[in-house]
């Protein structure tokens, strides 16, 4: 059976998050000192070799990303932490920040040293004002004790726009604009915040960095799945016995997460579906539960690991109703910059609502499928590209549920 393994949550419950002495007492900020002794490119190499891949959803090699910014000459560079955490069903970054804020600051400072940045921003969602307080306390303590050296960190608040989790929209928001994604390239690593080279990483990604520097790339890369090593923090929601969070090595299966750690479906019911990665993730039927949760294994079954949210639905769940709700989410959160997403999310919600009300025909479903395929390819950013995934995956695995509601 799967066992918890705590790397990013190694200090959870063991230290007082509001006391820097506690963090320093368990070896905190020693990895930053070690990094400074290694030299910039050696730090980047170490992180690259560890094969730490982004925990915010896209799974990009963190060391490689840092390398782009390191290699781009500029008078100012930035480190940005993505703490927007907008994927419904996800609260892992909150758990990390509330319980061990200094590990995030240390990870960011190591990145700052490695790429040559003296300024960092944490973009924390506006719904977490109490987390912002914890972060500001930690930053004040770190500055007062001098551990960060010449690296400065500032918290900026999001304001309830899911799209601002997308890295270029996030950058626009820090700049004080509407959070509309930019065209890529150029990527933020080369031209990001105020046009300067900017590393954007997720909270959980940064939280891994101090441990990797402490224990080495080889140690890290030997944990979990070979191509997506380390651990992942999962948050379980829906009809599951243990509605809580777990940190697990990445070579466990979906079944391990839902039935092992999660304790299975509530009230002795049968499972209908699991949606992983948040509201933009694909729906997974029982027959695919033995899939490993790592990034590549999930992609191979047309699902995602995403943020690590695990939404469990029992046999009584009305999937069409859930998809109706999800398509409404995307209609609401589309920023409106590109037409395929602005129009597509609206029409998709319209069609699914029609199915849910028992007023649709088979032609409507065919149309929504075609619309979904167009959006996946034509939308500007990941929001619109992923928005059809819940509908398209339920149509491939649970089509009878839709047919049963046709008028």
């Amino acid at each position, binding site marked *: 059976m799967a066992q918890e393994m705590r790397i990013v949550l190694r200090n959870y419950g063991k230290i007082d998050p509001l006391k820097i002495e506690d963090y320093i007492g368990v070896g905190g900020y020693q990895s930053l000192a070690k990094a400074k002794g290694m030299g910039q490119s050696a730090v980047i190499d170490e992180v690259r070799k560890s094969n730490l891949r982004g925990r915010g959803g896209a799974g990009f090699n963190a060391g490689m990303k840092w390398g782009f910014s390191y290699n781009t000459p500029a008078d100012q560079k930035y480190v940005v932490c993505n703490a927007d955490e*907008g994927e*419904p*069903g996800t609260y892992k970054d909150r758990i990390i920040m509330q319980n061990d804020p200094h590990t995030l600051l240390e990870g960011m400072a190591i990145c700052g040293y490695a790429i040559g940045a003296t300024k960092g921003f944490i973009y924390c969602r506006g*719904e977490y004002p109490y987390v912002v307080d914890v972060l500001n306390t930690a930053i004040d303590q770190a500055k007062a004790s001098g551990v960060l050296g010449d690296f400065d960190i500032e918290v900026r*608040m999001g304001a309830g726009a899911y799209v601002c989790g997308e890295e270029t929209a996030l950058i626009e928001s820090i700049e004080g*604009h509407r959070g509309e994604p930019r065209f890529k390239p150029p990527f933020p690593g080369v031209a990001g915040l105020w046009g300067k080279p900017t590393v954007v990483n997720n909270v959980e990604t940064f939280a891994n960095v101090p441990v990797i520097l402490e224990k080495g790339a080889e140690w890290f890369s030997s944990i979990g799945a070979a191509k997506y090593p380390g651990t992942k923090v999962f948050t379980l929601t*829906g009809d599951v016995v243990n509605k809580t969070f777990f940190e697990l090595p990445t070579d466990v299966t979906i079944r391990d997460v839902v039935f092992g750690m999660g304790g299975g479906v509530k009230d002795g019911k049968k499972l209908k579906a699991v949606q992983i990665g948040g509201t933009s993730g694909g729906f997974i039927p029982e027959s695919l539960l033995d899939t490993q949760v790592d990034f590549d294994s999930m992609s191979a079954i047309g699902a995602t690991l995403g943020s690590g949210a695990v939404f469990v639905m029992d046999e009584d769940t009305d999937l069409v109703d859930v998809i109706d709700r999800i398509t409404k*989410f995307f209609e609401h959160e589309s920023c409106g910059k590109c037409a395929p997403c602005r129009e597509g999310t609206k029409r998709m919600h319209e069609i699914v609502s029609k199915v849910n009300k028992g007023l649709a025909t088979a032609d409507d479903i065919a149309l929504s499928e075609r619309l979904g395929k167009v959006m996946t390819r034509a939308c500007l950013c990941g929001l619109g590209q992923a928005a059809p995934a819940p509908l398209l995956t339920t149509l491939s695995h649970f089509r009878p549920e839709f047919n049963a509601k046709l008028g």
Partner: protein
Amino acid sequence: MADYNEIISAFKNKPGGIIEAFHAIQKEYSYIPEEAVVAAADAFDMSKARAYGVATFYSYLKVGKRGKNVIRICESAPCHVAGADKVVAALEKELGIKMGETTGDGKFTLEFTECVGQCQATPVITINSVPYGDVTAEKVGEILAAYK
């Protein structure tokens, strides 16, 4: 209550600080007065249209008056399947208003929100951003009592 002009001037020299300024105003007023958007446009040296565009882009920010206590109900899928609709019905009944409305005495506003990141305890509501988890129709009266 702090004057919004004072709040804005505290953020004036922060690059991109207009959103932080809006947050600080909303914390004080529970919303952003229309005139404050105009004042912010001036302070951050942008057109009124642009400042208004920023303020209205973000669903956590509200331009124009609303109640002193803002109750938001999460309607994201995990809260939805956990019975958010029953919580909505109980709140509407208790306050005598519909979603999106404000009570006559200006004390409460009811709004929907998407996930607020407290999904270990669905269904979730927030009152002035303070989260309450595992909310049931029965608990609504008790939770509201503290704000009446």
